[in-house]
C-alpha cells in the first residue's frame, strides 16, 4: 500500500520560477538588471546616476527637436533591423549589413552625382537614387548569399569580407573620384537641396523617410507572418533538410532572404544620403548594421517587437550625446548600456530555457 504524499505548497521559490520562465517578465527582469548594472558603472565613475538618466531622457525625448532627431535616427535602425529579420528567419547571420548599407549609400549618391544637372526633376532623381540604393544593397547581399550557396563560404565570414570591400570602395570614392574640388577629406560635396528628401521645417526629420520605415516594417511583418514565403523561410531557418524534403528550394530561399535584407539595407543607406547627411562620407553606415543585429536578436525575430526595441536603442545613443557636454562623460556609455541590455536579455533567455527544459526541451516521444 502506498500513501499519497501531501501536495507541495506553492512557495516563493515557485513564484520566482514562474517569473523567470515567462518570456515577458524575464525581459522586464533583464531590463531592470541592466539598469542596475549601469547604475553601478556610473556610480563607480563618480557621477550621480539620476542626473545621467535625466540627461539621457531629456536628450532623447525632452523636446520637439529631440524627438524629431530621435525619429530621424530611428529610421535607418528600424530599416536595418527589419531587413535582418528576413535573414534571421532563414537562420542566417547577415553580418554584411554594414557593407550593404554603405553600398546603398554609394549607389544612391552615385545616381544623384550622375543625374544632377540633367533636366530630370528633383523628386524623380530622388526616386531613382532610392531605387539604385536598394539595388546596391541587394547586390552586395546577393554576393554574400552566392558565396554561401555556391562557394560554401559561411555568411558571417563572407559578410565581414564584403564589409571590408565596401569600406575600401567608399574610401576610394570619397578620397578619389568623388572628392569635392580641391580638397579630399573623407566626404564628398553636398548634394543640391533639390535632391534632399523634404524635411520638416526646422528639423532633420523627413516624413518620407519615416513613412518608408513604417511601411518597411509593415511589409516585413506581413511577409513573415502572413505569407507562404515567410512561412517557408521560417521552415528553412529551423530545419533546412526537412524543408527541402517538403519541397522547398532551400538555397533559393536563403538567397532571397539575403536579397530582401539587402534591399532594406540599401534603403537605409540611401536615406542616410538623401534624408540626413546629404553627402557620401566614410562610416556612413553609422553602425546601424551591427546595432540592428542586436535589436533583431533582442526582439527574438518578431517584427512588432523590433519597433520599441529599436526606439529604445536609438534613444539611448541620442540621449547619450548630452552626457559628454554636461557631465564630460564619454558618450560611449550608451554603447555600454546597450551591451549590458543584450547580455542580460540573453542571460535571462538562457535561464529561462534551463528552467523550462523539462516542458519545452527535447521530447523523446
Amino acid at each position, binding site marked *: 500500500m502506498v500513501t*499519497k504524499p501531501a501536495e507541495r505548497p506553492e512557495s516563493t521559490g515557485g513564484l520566482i520560477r514562474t517569473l523567470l520562465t515567462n518570456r515577458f517578465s524575464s525581459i522586464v527582469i533583464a531590463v531592470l538588471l541592466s539598469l542596475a548594472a549601469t547604475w553601478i558603472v556610473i556610480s563607480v565613475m563618480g557621477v550621480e546616476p539620476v542626473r545621467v538618466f535625466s540627461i539621457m531622457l531629456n536628450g532623447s525625448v525632452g523636446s520637439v527637436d529631440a524627438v524629431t532627431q530621435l525619429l530621424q535616427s530611428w529610421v535607418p535602425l528600424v530599416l536595418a533591423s527589419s531587413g535582418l529579420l528576413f535573414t534571421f528567419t532563414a537562420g542566417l547571420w547577415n553580418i554584411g549589413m554594414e557593407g550593404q548599407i554603405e553600398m546603398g549609400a554609394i549607389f544612391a549618391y552615385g545616381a544623384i552625382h550622375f543625374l544632377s544637372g540633367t533636366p530630370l526633376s528633383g523628386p524623380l532623381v530622388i526616386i531613382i537614387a532610392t531605387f539604385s540604393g536598394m539595388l546596391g544593397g541587394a547586390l552586395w547581399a546577393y554576393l554574400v548569399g552566392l558565396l554561401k550557396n555556391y562557394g560554401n563560404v559561411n555568411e558571417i565570414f563572407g559578410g565581414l569580407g564584403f564589409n571590408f570591400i565596401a569600406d575600401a570602395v567608399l574610401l576610394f570614392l570619397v578620397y578619389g573620384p568623388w572628392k569635392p574640388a580641391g580638397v579630399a577629406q573623407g566626404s564628398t560635396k553636398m548634394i543640391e537641396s533639390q535632391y534632399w528628401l523634404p524635411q520638416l521645417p526646422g528639423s532633420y526629420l523627413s516624413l518620407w523617410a519615416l513613412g518608408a520605415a513604417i511601411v518597411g516594417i509593415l511589409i516585413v511583418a506581413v511577409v513573415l507572418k502572413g505569407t507562404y514565403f515567410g512561412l517557408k523561410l521560417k*521552415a528553412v531557418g529551423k530545419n533546412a533538410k526537412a524543408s527541402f524534403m517538403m519541397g*522547398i528550394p532551400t538555397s533559393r530561399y536563403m538567397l532571397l532572404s539575403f536579397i530582401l535584407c539587402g534591399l532594406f539595407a540599401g534603403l537605409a543607406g540611401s536615406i542616410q544620403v538623401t534624408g540626413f547627411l546629404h553627402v557620401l562620407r566614410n562610416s556612413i553606415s553609422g553602425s546601424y548594421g551591427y546595432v540592428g543585429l542586436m535589436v533583431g536578436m533582442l526582439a527574438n525575430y518578431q517584427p512588432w517587437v523590433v519597433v520599441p526595441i529599436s526606439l529604445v536603442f536609438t534613444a539611448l545613443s541620442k540621449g547619450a550625446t548630452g552626457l559628454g557636454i554636461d557631465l564630460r562623460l564619454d558618450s560611449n556609455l550608451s554603447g555600454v548600456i546597450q551591451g549590458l541590455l543584450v547580455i542580460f536579455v540573453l542571460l535571462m533567455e538562457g535561464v529561462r530555457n534551463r528552467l523550462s527544459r523539462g516542458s519545452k526541451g527535447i521530447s523523446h516521444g
Partner: protein
Amino acid sequence: MDVELINIHKRFGKVHANNGISLTVKSGTVQGILGENGAGKSTLMKILSGFIQADSGDILLDGKKVTIHSPADSVKLGIGMLHQDPQDFPPMKVVDNLIIGSPMGLFPDRKKIIREFEELQKQFNFSISPETYVDTLTVGERQQLEILRLLWLGAEVLILDEPTTGISASQKDLLFATIRKLAAQGKAILFVSHKLDEVEALCSQVVVFRQGINMGSMTPPYQTDKLVEMMFGKSIVRSENVCEKQEDKSFEIEELRIDDVRLAIRDVNFCIQKGEVIGLAGMEGSGQALILRALAGILRPTGGHIYMIEGADGGRIDLAGKHYFTYRDHGIHFLPAARLEEGLIQGLSLAEHFALAEEQTGFMVDRDQVENLSKKRITDFNIHGTPESRIEELSGGNQQRAELALMRDPLRLLLLEHPTRGLDIESAMYIWGKLKQRCEDGASIVFISSDLDEVIHYSDRILVFYGGKVSPAFEASSVTIDMLGQLIGGKGWS
C-alpha cells in the same frame, strides 16, 4: 536495487502526462510498461532518469528517498536509461565515447578501459571493436554500446524505452538474452513497449498506463485480451488484408544501380502496379533503404531507369537522374524515418506544417483554411495535439502520425520508411487503413519495415534484400514469417 516511484505527477501545460503514478520494481525482475501512444511512459522514464523533473511525488531506491535533478545525478545513483530516439553520436571512437561519459580524471587509462569493455561485452556475446567509430555502427550496435556503457558506469537499474524499434531480428534476440542475463545478475529492468508479444515473452510483471494513469498490473500467464483492453479501453481484432490488385503498371524499374560507400546494388528490376503495396524486407543496411531513397529522387542512382507510365498507351518517362522536386511534382512522396531531422520541423506548429505541405493557394496564407484543414487532419489521423502544438511537444507516436498526415492527396507513389515505427498496434492498423484507401484511389506504396509481421501482413508483394542483392518479388500471401526470417538472414538464396 529496488526502485519505488510514489504518486508521480507531471503536467505539460494542459496535458497531465503522469497523473499520480506509483510503481515498484524489485531487483532481479523485468518490469514491462505498456501503454498506447502518449500514455506517459517516456515521461515517467525521463523523470526516473533525471531528464525532466516531476511536479510532485517521491522516488525511493532500496527504500531510501532520493532526489534526482539531472541525468548525471541518476547515473551516480546507478540508474541508466536507453532512450526511445537514438541520442546523437559524435564521430568518435567507441573507447572515447566511454571516456568522455566517465567521471575519470584528466588522464584516463585507455588500456584498462578497453580491457574492461572487452570483458563486459564477452559476457553478452557482443562484438564491437573499441577502436571503430561510433557513427559507423548500426542502430542495434549503438544500442549494445549504450547498454555496455551504462553497465560500465555501474548501472543497477536499466530503463529501456522501446528498444526493439529499428533493430534486426537477430539483434533483438541478442538483446532479449542480454536483458534476461542482467535480471539474473540482480539488476532491475524497466522495459517500455507497446508490443504485447515482446512484453509477454520477456517480462516478469507488466503495468499498463493510459492517459497518465496506472491502469493496473498483471503477472504471467498473461491474458492478451485483458492487456489490450487495459491499454485501449476496448479489445481489437486484426483487420483484413486489403488493397485490390490492378493489372496496369504504374512504374517500371530497370537495371537500377546504386553505389554507396558501403554497398553496391546492381541490376534491380521490378515493376510497381497501381494500388499495390510492396514491402522491402531485410536487415538494416542491406540496401532496401537506398533503393527507397533512389525511388524518391533523393539518392542519384549510378545507372538504370525509373520509368513512370503515363496514360493507357504505355508511354513512359524516365525520372532517373532528375531533381528530387521533379519526383515530387509527379506525385511521388517520401516519408523519412528520421522524423525530426528530415520529416518535420521543430519549432513549427502542426498548422504551419499542414500549410507548408499543401499546394500553395496564393501569396498569403489563409489562416482559417489552414486551421480547418489542420483540425480535420488532426481528427482524421487521431493526433493528440492542437493546430498550435509545436512538433516537439508531441509524443513520438503522434509525431509519426503527423508525418503521415502531411501527405498530399492525390499521390502516385508513396515511399515509406518505417511508417508505423513507434506506433501502438491500434494506431498502426488505423494508419494502414488510411494508406490502403490511397491504394484504392490508384496510388502505390513501397515501404520498408524491420517488423516482418508488418511486411507480410500489409504487402501484396515482397522484395527481400541481403547484402545489396535483391530477390525476385514474392507474393506476400505465399510467405511465412519463418521463410522471410531465413531469407533476410541470407539463407535460402539460390
